[in-house]
C-alpha cells in the first residue's frame, strides 16, 4: 500500500524527510523546504528590501540549491532583492574549471548575472602554482584564507550589500564539533551565528540562509528539482581531521536524526566564561582587512609565497610580522625553518 503524504494527505509520499521522519509528496517537500528557508530569512532578518545580494556560487549542491531557493523566494515573497552569482576561481585544474562550467549554466538557467574573481588576478598565484610550492599539506590553509578575502573583494567590486553562502546544518554542526576538538574558543563562539555583522572596512556582511537545512534534504531537493550541480571532491587532499568529525556527525545522525540540530542548539546556547582571554579584532596594517594580528593571514601567506618561504603563514610566527612590514630580510636561521617542507 502506498504511503500517503503526511502533509496534504492526498498524494502519495515519495520521500521520508531526514530531518523530521515525515513522509511527504514531492510538492509538499518543496513547499516545506522553501518555507523553512523563508522562515530562517524572516526570523533572523537577513535581508532588507532593495539590497544587492551576492550568492557565493561554487557549482556544488549547496550553492546551487541556495541560488534556486533564493530566486523562488525573492519572487514569491517580494523580498525586493537584486540577486547575483559570485564565484571564485582558485585555479585548480580538473576541479574548479569544471565546476565553473556548472555555475555558468546556472547563470543561464536562473537568469542571474555571474561574476568570477580569480586567485590569479587578485594574488598573482593559482592554487596549482601554490601546491607546486607548498606541497599537498597545508594547502587548504592558503585556499581557505584566500577564498574568504576573494569573495569580499569581488563583492566590493560589484557593490554588493550582503554575501550569502551555502553552508548547511551539517557544516555548522561539524564546525561546532571541530572547534571543541581544537579548543578554538573564539571560533566556537562565532561559528553558529547566522550572519556576521559588518566587521569594518573591506568586509561585506555574510549570512547562511541554509543554516538549518540538512545536507541530505538539500540533495533531495536538488534531485527532485533536477537541479544541475557539480559533485566532485577537490583534487587536493581532503582534510583528514575534519573527516573524523564528519563521520562522527553522520553516525550521530543515524542514531538520532535530530542530532545535527541538537549540536547547533548547543552551539547557540554556549557562551564563554568571564575572564577567558579572547583575541582582539583589529585590521591588517598592509591591506586593511580584518585581522587579530599586525598582518592579516592572507598577507602573511602571500609574503611567504613571494619570498619562497611557504611556511611563513603556517603555524604561529607573529614575531616576524614586524620584519615583514618593514620589508627587512629574515635571518638565515629563520629562513631555514620556514623553507622546510615536510611531506
Amino acid at each position, binding site marked *: 500500500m502506498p504511503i500517503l503524504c503526511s502533509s496534504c494527505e492526498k498524494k502519495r509520499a515519495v520521500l521520508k524527510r531526514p530531518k523530521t521522519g515525515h513522509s511527504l509528496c514531492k510538492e509538499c517537500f518543496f513547499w*516545506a523546504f522553501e518555507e523553512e528557508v523563508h522562515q530562517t530569512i524572516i526570523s533572523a532578518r537577513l535581508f532588507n528590501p532593495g539590497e544587492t545580494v551576492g550568492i557565493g556560487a561554487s557549482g556544488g549542491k549547496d550553492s546551487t540549491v541556495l541560488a534556486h531557493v533564493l530566486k523562488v523566494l525573492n519572487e514569491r515573497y517580494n523580498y525586493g532583492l537584486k540577486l547575483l552569482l559570485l564565484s571564485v576561481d582558485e585555479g585548480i585544474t580538473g576541479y574548479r574549471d569544471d565546476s565553473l562550467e556548472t555555475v555558468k549554466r546556472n547563470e543561464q538557467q536562473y537568469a542571474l548575472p555571474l561574476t568570477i574573481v580569480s586567485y590569479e588576478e587578485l594574488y598573482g598565484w593559482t592554487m596549482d602554482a601554490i601546491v607546486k610550492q607548498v606541497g599537498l599539506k597545508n594547502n587548504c*590553509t592558503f585556499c581557505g584564507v584566500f577564498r574568504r578575502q576573494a569573495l569580499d573583494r569581488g563583492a566590493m567590486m560589484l557593490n554588493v550589500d550582503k554575501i550569502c553562502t551555502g553552508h548547511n546544518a551539517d557544516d555548522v554542526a561539524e564546525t561546532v564539533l571541530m*572547534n571543541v576538538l581544537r579548543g578554538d574558543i573564539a571560533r566556537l563562539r562565532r561559528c553558529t551565528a547566522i550572519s556576521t555583522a559588518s566587521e569594518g572596512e573591506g568586509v561585506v556582511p555574510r549570512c547562511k540562509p541554509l543554516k538549518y537545512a540538512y545536507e541530505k534534504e538539500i540533495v533531495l531537493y536538488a534531485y527532485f528539482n533536477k537541479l544541475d550541480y557539480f559533485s566532485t571532491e577537490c583534487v587536493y587532499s581532503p582534510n583528514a581531521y575534519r573527516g573524523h568529525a564528519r563521520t562522527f556527525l553522520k553516525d550521530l545522525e543515524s542514531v538520532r536524526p535530530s542530532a545535527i540540530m541538537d549540536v*547547533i542548539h548547543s552551539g547557540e546556547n554556549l557562551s564563554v566564561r568571564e575572564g577567558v582571554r579572547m583575541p582582539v579584532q583589529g585590521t591588517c596594517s598592509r591591506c586593511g582587512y580584518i585581522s587579530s594580528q599586525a598582518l592579516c593571514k592572507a598577507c602573511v601567506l602571500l609574503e611567504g609565497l613571494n619570498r619562497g618561504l611557504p611556511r611563513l603563514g603556517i*603555524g604561529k610566527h607573529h614575531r616576524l610580522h614586524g620584519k615583514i612590514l618593514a620589508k627587512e630580510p629574515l635571518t638565515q636561521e629563520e629562513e631555514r625553518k620556514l623553507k622546510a617542507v615536510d611531506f
Partner: protein
Amino acid sequence: MCQVDEEYSDQLEKRTAPTVFQKCVKCKDGTAVLIIRAGDAFCRCCFKEYFIHKFRAMLGKNRLIFPGEKVLLAISGGPASSSMLSQVQEGLSQDAPKKLRFIPGIIYIDEGGVCGMSLEERDRSIAQLESIFRATGYPFHIVRLEQVFDLPTSVLGAVPPAPQRPESGYKAAVDQFIQNDRARASCSPGEGGGERDGERDPAVWDAQVRLSRLETRDAPDGTPPPVVRHGEDLERLFSSVRTLTAKEDMLQTLRHHLLVHTARTQGYTKGFSDPRHGDVVIVRPMRDYSSKEIAFYNKMFGVPSVFVPGLDTKASDKASIQLLTESFVTKLQADFPSTVSTIYRTSEKLRAARPSQNAGSETSAKCLLCVCAVDTKAEEASAFHATLVSERLSQKRVPGGALPGTSARDDAAGQCCSSSGGEGGGGCGAGGGGCCSPTRTPTTTDLKSLLCYSCRLTVKDMTAVDFLPRYIVSEAERRSRRSRMKQEISEFLLDEEEDEETC
C-alpha cells in the same frame, strides 16, 4: 566547506612510539613502569605521588568542600568511583600531609532493575560492595533505583543554598575547624557539621528532616538490602523508552534525583561543582584523571572495584549517542593524544548562555527533570524554532492554525486543554474541576513544555509518559496548574520577572 586556518595537523602531536627501559621523568632515578600522556614515563613511587597530589590539589584549589562538611560519595563499583573512594581514604588518614577535613559517607545505587538482572545477581553485587564499604569504616547507604517511585516532589525543586561564604571565608573556616577539633578532642567526633548547621536557614533544615523517610541503609551491619518494591513500575517505565540514548539519559536523571534526595535527608551538603540543586552541590573530583590513569592506579595499588553490568553493557558502539561519543573520543585520543585534554580545557572555558532578556517571565524556569535552566525560550532565529517549523510544515495543516504536536511552540503558560482536550470544558469536565482537574494525567505535550531542550529529546523517545514516577507527574501537574493560574491573572501582575517556579 571553508577550511580557513586548519593547520592544526601540526599542532596536534602525533603519537610517538614508547621506548623501553626509560628512567622516571620526575625523580630521574627509578625505572619507569608506565607512561601517562605522550612521553611522560613515571616510576611507581612518583606515579602514586602524582595521582594523590592531583586529587588533593583539585579539592584544595577549588575550595569546594569546607572542613567538617558531610560529603556523600557516590560509588558505582566502577574503576573511577572506586579510585575516588581510595583517594578519600588516603586523604583522611591520620598521617596524610594536607589532610582532608570532611566527613564522608557512601551511597551505592543498585540499578540492576533496568537491565534485567535477577535479584540474586543484584544482591551478590551489593554484598561484594558492602564488604569494600565496610572496610572503610564510613557509613554507607544502599539504595535501589526502584526507590525513585517513592520520592517526594520536593526533590525537583532547588533549595536555596546556605548563605554564600566569601572566598576569604575558607581559610577562616579551616582555622576555626582546627581549633574546634582541638577543643573537643575528647568528645565524640560525630557532629562535625554542627557549626555549619547552625548558620543554615532553620526552615530548610526542617524541610529536609521531614523528607527523611526513605529507606536507606546506613549501618554497616548484616541487614539485608532494602526490599525491591516497584520492580514492575521501573520495568514499565524503561520499556516505554524507545532508544538506548534516551534510556541512559532517563537513568542519569533518576539517579541524580535519588542522590540529591539521599544527600538532603541524611544531611550531606556536598554530593561529589554542580550547584543546580542549590543546597546539595555535586563535585566531580575525578574529572581531571584519564580513565587510563585510573586503571593503572587501581591495578598497581590494589584498589578493589566491582563489575556491575549496566544498560550499555554488551551494546554496540553505535547503540546510543553516549556510546558513540565515547568510542569517537577514545579512537581520536589514540591518534591524537591531546584530544581529551583539549576537549576538557574547552569545556572549562564555557558556560550555558544566559537566557535573553526579552524572552519573558519563563526565563528563570527550571527543567522539571534535570533542574537546569530551561533553554527553550530562545529567540525566533534558533535551531529550536527551526525544528518546530520543520515539524509543523511536514504535517497536515489544520484549519484555524492549531497544529497537532506543535503546541510546545506556543507559550508554555498558555497551554490549557487546547492541545489535548479541545476548547472549553467539554472534553475534560468529567474530573469535576474542569481543565484544572488534578487527576488528569499530563500528556507528552504538557510535559514537554516544562522541560529543557535535551530532556524533551528524552521524552520524545518515550511511547508514553504514564509510567513516570508519581513525584514527577505530580510536580508536572502542579507546575501546569500554577502557570495556568498565572496566565489567568497575568494582566494584574505588576512584576513580570517574579520567579515562581523555584519555590
